[in-house]
Every structure is written in structure tokens, then in C-alpha cells.
């Protein structure tokens, strides 16, 4: 147990060291002082509402990463989160503004609608996968693009859009649909739906590790053949996991829409889906890992603005994100190999004879 703890801490530490070295090299190459750059980035957290922004973004990234992780558990690469959350947010904004309900109920209905819309957008790839064997990466890339078309269509002024200045938006949500946040005065407002992300992560953790459903999902991902022999219906699991992944993806836009924007507009942020994939992999599909990955990502995203202040080209921040992703996964990989060797040694010593890690021999 002790060595388990040690090795699970070793990876992140190694990763941070790696990433720091890589970023320092990138910064030095650009003629900046890495320590200073890091200093201002960390200092930035104390500025204004940056800390709150980081918390808010962390929640959003967590939702996206959970959506990705559900797919990964089954070896499905749901590239389509990008499109699913866009459709989810748009449909939820339209429906939410069209109905009147008492507050809490109103939120719940909107969340359900968002999840349903996200799941609906994942349905076609799921069906194509199980009936026609279409690779989900391909179909979801296509669906992402088409989601833009759908969004552009639905937000047309003769559909559900209204014009505000030069911007197009859906009807603003009524008061009852707006989820209040935690006001921290000058520090900003933490989205109420930050808790949605926390709950989602907790539910994800319990379902994956403690329930039959999670077990069947993981088993199908680890070995579809063994799962089938164990009585798991692989096709059903594919459909279910893609739909659940899509449903969680549908929630990604909710903290912002219900907590701040109160409408879907042309400025609706994109890119959370890809970030989610990266974060899920950083966090190794583990809810706590995902939370930390999301936090790291949000920190980089929000603190990078400070780089401008010390004359470091902001592009460096993008380079840093790439470098961090790479170094973190490399570090994981190295630690994993060390763990594997250690386990073989343990097993070898304990049995005093041959051991065969057939799994490593793929």
C-alpha cells in the first residue's frame, strides 16, 4: 500500500519537474526569465477575479473531461464532445427561455434538456458504430462540424435568434432559470453549477468503481471479448457509454449559460471538448486526477494573460500547454514502467518462480 501511494505521487511530481524544465527552455529561448514568468503567472492568481475564474473554468473542464473519460473507459474516443456541448447548450438555452417554472425545478429541467440534447447528438455515431462499425472518431468529427451548422441554423433570426447590437443570441433566460452563484465581492462569483461538476465527478467515481454498470463498462473497454464471455452486451455498452458521454458533454456549457451569460450567443466559447480529452488523459480517467488536471489547465489558461505584463509573447503559453501535456504523459509512462517492473519483482519474489505478464505482451 505504501509503495502504491509513493508511486501514485511520483508520477505527478516527475511530471511537474518535466514540464517545468520544458517550459523553462521554451521561455529561455524566447529571451524571458522563466522564474519571473512563473512568478507573474502565480501572482496573477491573487489578482482580481482570476482565482474565481480558475475555479469556474475548472468545473467546466471537469465536465468535459468526465465526458471524455466515460468514453475512454470503453476505449471509445468521443471527439464529439465539442459538438455535443454546443448542441446541448443551444437547445437548453432555447428551451429554458421558452418555459416558466419555479427556480430549482427550472434549473433541473434545463439541465435534463441539455443532457438529452448532448446525448441526442451522440446517438448517430453510436448507432453507426454498432450497426455499421463506423469508427466513432470519424463520425464524431463530422458531427462536430455539423453541430456548427445546426447552431447557425437554430440561432437564425427566423428561428430562435434575436439580434442584440451586432450579436445574435437566443432569448435571455428568465430569472427563474438563472442559477445564483457564490458572490465573493471583488473576487467575483463562483458559478453555482461548480457543484454540478463536483457531483458529476463523485457520481462518476462511484459508478465506475462500485457499480455493476461501471464494472461492465470498464470490462468492455479493457477486453471486449472477455466482457462478452462474462455476459456483458458489448453493443449495448457502446451505445450507452456514448450516450452517457454525450449527456455529460451536454452539460459542459451549463455553468456559463445558467450562471453568467443567460443565453447562447455567437460568442459561445469553443474548444472545451478538446481540452476535456487532454485533461481526461492527464487525469488517467480518475475523478481526482481529472479534477487536478482541470485545475492545472484552468490555471494555465487564466494566468497566461499575465505573461503580457512581463513582455513574454503570449504564444509561449500555448506552447507551454502543449509541453505540459506531453511531459505529464511522458512522466506517467515512465512511472508506469517502473511500477510494472516493481510488481514483477514482487510477484517473482513471492512465488519464487516464473511469472508471466501476458498483458504486457501485446
Amino acid at each position, binding site marked *: 500500500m505504501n509503495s502504491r501511494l509513493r508511486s501514485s505521487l511520483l508520477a505527478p511530481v516527475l511530471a511537474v519537474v518535466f514540464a517545468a524544465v520544458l517550459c523553462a527552455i521554451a521561455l529561455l529561448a524566447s529571451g524571458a526569465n522563466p522564474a519571473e514568468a512563473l512568478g507573474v503567472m502565480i501572482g496573477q492568481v491573487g489578482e482580481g477575479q482570476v482565482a474565481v475564474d480558475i475555479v469556474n473554468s475548472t468545473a467546466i473542464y471537469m465536465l468535459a473531461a468526465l465526458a471524455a473519460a466515460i468514453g475512454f473507459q470503453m476505449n471509445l474516443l468521443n471527439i464529439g464532445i465539442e459538438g455535443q456541448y454546443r448542441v446541448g447548450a443551444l437547445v437548453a438555452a432555447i428551451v429554458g427561455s421558452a418555459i416558466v417554472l419555479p427556480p430549482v425545478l427550472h434549473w433541473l429541467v434545463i439541465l435534463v434538456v441539455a443532457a438529452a440534447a448532448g446525448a441526442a447528438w451522440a446517438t448517430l455515431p453510436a448507432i453507426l458504430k454498432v450497426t455499421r462499425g463506423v469508427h466513432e472518431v470519424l463520425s464524431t468529427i463530422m458531427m462536430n462540424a455539423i453541430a456548427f451548422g445546426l447552431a447557425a441554423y437554430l440561432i437564425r433570426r427566423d428561428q430562435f435568434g434575436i439580434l442584440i447590437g451586432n450579436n445574435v443570441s437566443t432569448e435571455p433566460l428568465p430569472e427563474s432559470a438563472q442559477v445564483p452563484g457564490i458572490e465573493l465581492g471583488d473576487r467575483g462569483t463562483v458559478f453555482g453549477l461548480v457543484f454540478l461538476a463536483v457531483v458529476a465527478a463523485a457520481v462518476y467515481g462511484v459508478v465506475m468503481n462500485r457499480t455493476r454498470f461501471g464494472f461492465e463498462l470498464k470490462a468492455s473497454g479493457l477486453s471486449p471479448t*472477455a*466482457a462478452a464471455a*462474462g455476459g456483458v452486451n458489448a453493443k449495448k455498452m457502446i451505445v450507452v457509454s456514448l450516450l452517457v458521454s454525450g449527456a455529460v458533454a451536454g452539460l459542459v456549457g451549463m455553468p456559463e449559460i445558467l450562471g453568467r451569460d443567460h443565453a447562447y450567443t455567437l460568442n459561445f466559447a469553443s474548444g472545451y471538448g478538446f481540452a476535456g480529452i487532454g485533461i481526461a488523459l492527464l487525469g488517467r480517467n480518475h475523478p481526482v486526477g481529472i479534477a487536478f488536471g482541470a485545475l492545472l489547465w484552468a490555471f494555465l489558461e487564466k494566468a497566461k494573460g499575465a505573461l503580457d505584463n512581463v513582455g513574454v509573447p503570449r504564444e509561449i503559453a500555448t506552447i507551454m500547454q502543449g509541453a505540459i501535456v506531453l511531459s505529464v504523459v511522458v512522466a506517467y509512462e515512465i512511472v508506469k514502467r517502473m511500477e510494472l517492473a516493481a510488481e*514483477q519483482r*514482487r510477484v517473482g519474489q513471492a*512465488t519464487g518462480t516464473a511469472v*508471466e505478464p*501476458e498483458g504486457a505482451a501485446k
Partner: protein
Amino acid sequence: MTDTEVDTVADADARPVPAVVLAGITKRFPGVVANSDVDLTVETGEVHALCGENGAGKSTLMKILYGMQPPDEGTITVHGEQVRFRSPADAIRAGIGMVHQHFMLADNLTVLENVVLGAENLYGIGKRARARVRELAGSVGLEQDPSTLVERLGVADRQRVEILKVLYRGARIVILDEPTAVLVPQEVDELFDTLRTMRADGYTFLFISHKLDEVRAIADSITVIRRGTTVGTVAPDTVTSRQLAEMMVGSELPSPETRTSTVTENEVLQVQGLTLEAPDGRRILDDLHLVVRSGEVLGIAGVEGNGQTELVETLMGIRRAAAGRVLLNGRNLTRAGTLARREAGIGYIPEDRTRHGLLLTEPLWANRILGYQTRKPTARGAFLDIAGAREDTRRIVEEFDVRTPGIEVTAASLSGGNQQKLVIGRELSGDPVLLIASHPTRGVDVGAQAAIWDHIRNARAAGLAVLLVSADLDELIGLSDSIKVMLRGRFVADADPTTVTPEDLGSAMTGAAVVDDSGALVTETGGTP
């Protein structure tokens, strides 16, 4: 390597220089000494067999000789010349070829491509290569066109392609790591004929098998390895299989079983008119009828690829039958899914434990849950009972002698034999009424094999019905109360295990045997008409 060099090697046959001398080979893996100070001398032109328990270090030794792994200590001498191999390419250049324990074929490439891969400089990859492959194909009995995709080949043909690969490279020293594990007796005989012919042509073979009769039939000398070291080298005609086995294990083997029938009248499994169709409408299973009674072991014999796998998978609900009924204790399971069948009391030992039986990267206790995710003691409602699973896993490890440091290690870190014991332990713990066992002892050493047989016999005695599919005909004859022979998706013969010989069964499996009116196999016919 050029043709002229091959000739030089061939010339050397005349002299009594050993083909291979391994001296003082030691190989350590993390925590394990796979080979410790191994000495092995292989004479040119002989078939030299290696025997030993699972994990004794045979494959490792061969991989070292083939350049796939560097030895930590020791020297390799080939034809009197000391060599150092950094990769298989070096070994191939020195005239060594290896047929691996597991197939090393790319399914999506053609036979030709698989054969010429890595040896393209000999005959290119075009016409000349094709001609050469055709030429050699005859000598190993391969009748497929070189441009056939390997995925379309059966096991025996795959094995032939493996040997072809070695021959194509002009290897004169050929390592065969358990080549017969997947072959039926006739195919084994054909293989041995090929080997004998080639031996006469001056080829040298290193031959590994767990089937000691085979070893004694083909080998010129036998080296036994135990726990990574050589125990000794013997001539085949001076030892019995039993003595060999005892050399391998280092102690006496359990005595042979005494058979008492436990068959009852209670029909546990009834299969009626079971038919399975391929997507193109071809019948893979054709109108099969069978009954397994409580306390009975029904053996199914057949050359691989004749529908046994499909029969098992259809009975398990992994495949959908086109017609027919499956009844378990009178309950109709024809439309039930795999899980429902398992819950109804079917235990399942799949033929390939790593693909169908285990989640390799998960701990042992998680593997205990697989297939039992809805039942006690591993589940409570929609939730898993992890404590229960752990506890029951400990029990299995204990009862079935699974050699492991604990139940938290991944299934992948167990040796194959121990993995198999875990699977069997699991499948016997759900109080099954029927056990469907496919090749339950494949690739398992003699000691573990005997233990597995014991477990099956004990369960049978307690009233379990067993459907046993095995390629090991001795096992089939030894365990079964009755045997059915499968050929091209049909049952073509029934055999009585008390009278039938492996040879008879083998000829029935290839469709060459005589069957009387009742479908029973006519034995003692002295061969085929």
C-alpha cells in the same frame, strides 16, 4: 546471408562440430532468474527436445539463442564459432530460425508477405519470391496460394506458414517452441514426417513440447530443464514419459485415476437441432443434437475450425443460433443472453483465457467479478460487493493453489497456468449445474494439468454436467464419459472412451474413419479404408 554461406554450413554437416553450444547461460528478469548457468549442446542434424514445466525457462533460452533477448552471462557457439546476437536479424544471418510458441503472423498480410518479411533481400518481394514460396510450400504441405490473406488460414496452415518462414530464410537450425500444441494427431504426424525428411537433409531442430510421448517419438536427445537450470540430457529410448515427467517436476507424479461412472439420468443440458449460419448463409453448425446428464462429462473431439468454438459460443449465447433449442434443466434458454445463461447455472472456461477469460490489467479480485457481476458474493443489487469479491478470491487462490503473492496483483502478472487455475476456480464457484470447458489445460504444465483434472472430476462426482472440448485427445479420452466427434459443423461419430484410441479418434476427426449404422465409431479397423 548468401546462398554460398548456406552451402558452407551444409558442408560442415559432415564434421562432428555441434550445431549449437550454449554454455553457462544466465538470464535474470526483475525478481526472477529465468535461466541460470544453462549448458546445452545440440549436435548437427539431430532433433533435440527441451522439456520442462511452465516457466522453467525454455522459451527464454530459445529467445536468447534467437537474439531476441541478450543473455546476462554465458556464451553461444554456432558451428564452432562464438557469436553475439544483438537482434533476431543476427541470428537469422547465422542460419537460425524460430517458430514461436504463439503465432507471429500478421493477419492482414498475405502468406507471401508474411514469409518474405525481413528476408526480402533473398528473392525480392515479387515474382521470384512467390516462386520460391510455392516451391517450399510443398515441402511443408501448405496448399494455399501465396497471395491468400493469413486471416483466412486455419491453425495448421498457420503453423505451416511459420515453418515456411524459417525455411525461406535458409535456416539450418530451427527452433520449434511448442509447435504441436494446436495440432491434431494426424497433423502432428505430418509435421513429424516433414521434420524427419528435413533432418535427413541435414537440418537441426530444437523442439519444445509438453506432450512427452511426442517428444519421445521425434527426438534424438532430450534435455530437461527445471527452474532455469538443466537437469540432464537423456536419450528417448532410455526413459519413459513418466520418468521424464518426474525429472521435470523433481518429484513423483500423482498416480493415474481410476474411473467410476457418476452419470445419472438427470438430463441437464439438452440441445436440439442447433444450427448456426455464417453471414453468407453457410452452415457453421448443422442441426446438432446432444444431451449432457448430471455427473457426466461429454467430450467433443474435432480438428480446430470444425465448429467446436462456435458450438461453445452459441451455447454461451455469445452467438445467435439460426435454429434449434437449448434447454437447461428443462428451462428454455434459446433466446437468453450470455448473462442469463450464466445466471441459470452455466460455468464457462473459455479456450483462450487471456482473450475471453480475464481482464489482464485488473487485479485478481476484479477478475473474480467478471461473469458474476449480478450475483453473490460479488454483487449486491446494482452495486458491487468488493469485500465479498476479495474474500472469495482468497478462497479460490487457496483451494486451487493459484501461485500469487496476493489478490491485488494484476491477472497479467500470473503465469499462464496460474491464470487458468484462477479461471477454473471462478467458474466452479458459482454452483454451476453445467460446466462448458474449452481446452481447460492448454499450455498448462503437467502438475497443474493433473490438478485441473482433479477439480473437474470432483465436480463431476458432485453432480456437475460437463461439456468438454479439447484438442488433447488423451485428456478427452481420460476425462469423458462419452465422446462426440465434430466435422464441418456436424457430429459425425460417437466414441466410447473406454475403448477408443487417440488414433481412431484422429481419423474420425479428419473424416477418414468408419462409422456404423448407429453412428458409433468402428474401432480396431486397423486404419482407414
